């Protein structure tokens, strides 16, 4: 009994550590002016979100988060940073009224959403399935959501071709 209590409190502690990583990584991704710190913060934040998915009961989504976001998108952004050398380019200082307006807008949004989330009495659905397996996800992807699945693949194809064409044409024009 005390063993399970220990495991429970350990899981609690790890959960709050993960939340700290997520929020700290997000702050690191937004506030510093050096873009390399931003991308490091983004990687920390997305890995923390993957751990939160694990807490929410979906191992598959946690793996996908690590693969797609950390493995693909962050590495693509790192490549873009390497190709565009933005570190050596000077950026003018932020102006104070703009900064205040941005902080005001973001904090108003956060307070409103947090108040709604806290005040609402959420009611679960009357009948809830307990089917979290990858098999069900695969079946649904190929039956009920087949059209969306195909459209997503089409969008990805168009995005790949568009990315190649955009960078290729601009290189030909500038050289």
């Amino acid at each position, binding site marked *: 009994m005390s063993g399970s209590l220990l495991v429970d409190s350990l899981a609690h502690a790890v959960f709050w550590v993960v939340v700290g990583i997520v*929020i700290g990584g997000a702050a690191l991704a937004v506030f510093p002016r050096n873009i390399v710190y931003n991308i490091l913060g983004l990687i920390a934040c997305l890995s923390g979100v993957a751990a939160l998915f694990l807490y929410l009961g979906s191992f598959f989504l946690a793996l996908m988060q690590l693969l797609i976001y950390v493995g693909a998108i962050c590495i693509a952004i790192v490549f873009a940073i390497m190709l565009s050398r933005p570190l050596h380019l000077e950026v003018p200082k932020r102006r104070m009224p703009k900064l205040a307006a941005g902080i005001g807008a973001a904090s108003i949004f956060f307070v409103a959403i947090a108040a709604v989330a806290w005040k609402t009495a959420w009611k679960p659905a009357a009948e809830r399935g307990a089917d979290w397996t990858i098999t069900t996800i695969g079946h649904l992807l190929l039956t009920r959501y087949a059209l969306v699945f195909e459209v997503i693949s089409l969008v990805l194809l168009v*995005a790949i071709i568009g990315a190649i064409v955009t960078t290729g044409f601009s290189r030909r024009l500038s050289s």
Partner: protein
Amino acid sequence: MNSLSVYLIIAAALFSLGLFGVLMRRNLIGMLISIELMLNGANLNFMAFNRFLAPEPAVGQIVALFVMGIAAAEAAIGLSLILALFRRLRSINIERAQRLRG
């Protein structure tokens, strides 16, 4: 720990940090990073509602997967546009791209 509100507030914090970044950064790659943060906040919301309220647990995971696919497409297009703009302007500061103003 196991309550819906905690997850919703974490997601709201992620989203508002991303909103602040989109409003404040002038580095185009910084803005792209902030957009990724906002998408992750939305994704976390989907998964939290899926875990605590939804009738079918598979549907929320499928929606989160679609969001990830769209985010990958958006990152590819955005980065290639940023690279094209950098080759033209030698800068990725958004305020230098005045020629795009209508």
